[in-house]
């Protein structure tokens, strides 16, 4: 009895630690005073101001666009790469997996500057394109990491059976192999999307002047003071994702219990 109480208190403390800043930001989004240091009464004006703030909306659009495009591209490249890597010899596979893990193990700042040096020497124009290339690069390992275990579980005979029964390799892949990989692909996609959305460091080094994601926009605002509209926006994003997660989690979880 005491043990479970201690456990619950411990969990509660960790949750308070992790969510105190988030709670603070949500409270600040309703703060009528422009400075975050004092409470000036309840207001919704930052939410309406947000819709008219074109810079923030542009940054939001860039962030979402990059997150979506980079995670989708990473899913395609990563899944194909997984299938290819699985068919390699042991030694070759080790080399490939080793290189794949570099962006995850390496420091973000080093990944960021290394890509910056590459883009400069290639003469690329810094902007959405360079951010996108960088995000795809650091997203691919997350996709591979969640798809690879699924590929290993795959029974190759099923694919061969489909071929024997007259399916073209492409059809066999899409109808037989892909459905088995889908859960891994989906969690890889979500992971990549979230990582891209929350990234600051790599974007900081690969973005061009005048092109901002939410992260880089916030960073430039730090000195001048964050616009309260930003708190309103992040509250909206947070609440939306919270509701989505609750909806997604509720339905399959109830079905899953009887299987166990």
């Amino acid at each position: 009895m005491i043990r479970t109480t201690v456990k619950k208190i411990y969990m509660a403390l960790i949750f308070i630690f992790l969510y105190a800043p988030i709670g603070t930001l949500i409270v600040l989004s309703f703060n009528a005073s422009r400075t975050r240091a004092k409470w000036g009464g309840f207001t919704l004006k930052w939410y309406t101001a947000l819709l008219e703030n074109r810079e923030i909306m542009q940054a939001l659009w860039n962030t979402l666009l990059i997150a979506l495009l980079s995670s989708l591209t990473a899913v395609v490249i990563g899944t194909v790469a997984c299938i290819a890597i699985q068919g390699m010899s042991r030694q070759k596979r080790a080399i490939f997996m080793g290189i794949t893990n570099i962006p995850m193990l390496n420091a973000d700042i080093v990944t960021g500057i290394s890509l910056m040096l590459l883009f400069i020497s290639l003469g690329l124009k810094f902007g959405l394109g360079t951010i996108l290339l960088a995000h795809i690069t650091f997203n691919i390992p997350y996709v591979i990491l969640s798809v690879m275990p699924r590929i290993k579980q795959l029974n190759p005979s099923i694919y061969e059976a489909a071929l024997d029964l007259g399916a073209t390799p492409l059809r066999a892949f899409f109808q037989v192999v892909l459905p088995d990989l889908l859960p891994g692909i989906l969690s890889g996609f979500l992971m990549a999307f979230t990582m891209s959305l929350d990234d600051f460091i790599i974007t900081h080094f690969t973005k061009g002047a005048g092109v901002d994601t939410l992260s880089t926009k916030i960073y430039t605002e730090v000195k001048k003071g964050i616009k309260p509209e930003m708190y309103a926006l992040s509250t909206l994003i947070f609440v939306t994702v919270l509701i989505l997660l609750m909806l997604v989690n509720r339905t399959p979880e109830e079905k899953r219990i009887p299987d166990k």
Partner: protein
Amino acid sequence: MKNHKLSRQMMAAPYTAWIILFIVVPLGMVFYYGLTDKTGAFTLENVLDIMSAEHAKALWYALGLSLISTLICFLLAYPLAMILADREGNAKLNRHSLILLIFILPMWMNFLLRTLAWQTLLEKTGVINRILEFFHLPSLQIINTPYAIILGMVYNFLPFMVLPIYNALVKIDPNVISAAQDLGANRLQTFLRITFPLSLGGVISGITMVFIPALTTFVISKLLGGSKILLIGNVIEEEFTLASNWHLGSGLSIVLMLFIILNMVVSAIFDKEGEGNML
């Protein structure tokens, strides 16, 4: 599947091209810039500049703060991972959604904003001090000190410690624990001799996941440490953005990578199976 070998090779082509162009070549360029001077001649000067008083101090600071943060993360995360992994205790708690709550959800609130929120919480007249004042407790003056940086590191990277340990703990066969108890081991013995050694892989990868980003951060120190405390990450960032001395910045990055490689070697020694994965 031999007859598909050719098509498999073709499937590997795009990824091979991608990792060569976007991983191998860029890293090669960091080494090229780090090991040459402005005329393109080979030099070790940029790397050895880490020994200069100012840079050595930034490196020591970063090493110290990140080691302390990693230790605190470990001490906080292990019990949490054990609670999450406990099969009996959590029948009612939905483990999956708890993990989502701890890891994925906070990431949707921008990491810079979350770190900045600690300013509001820690300030002289901030939320925490008002609560302390209410209870007539001494106030907490840690904003713009190394303590605030440690707090920011622990706050940001704690989830990366919990997840691998949790994954290692749930993989432990419950029969092994039962066997130990049947053979007369008490709770402590079971933990020290069975549970902990079996979770070591997770601990090692958790340490990597926290130590490297903490060692190399420049954001947390900038946001919570005021502008007085420079970590090695801040030095490198400024070489690239303000001073535009890419050679020096790359040279110092090579030093950072040496620490990363050292960390990987240590991990490989402890975790031969490669079991403790992040996901």
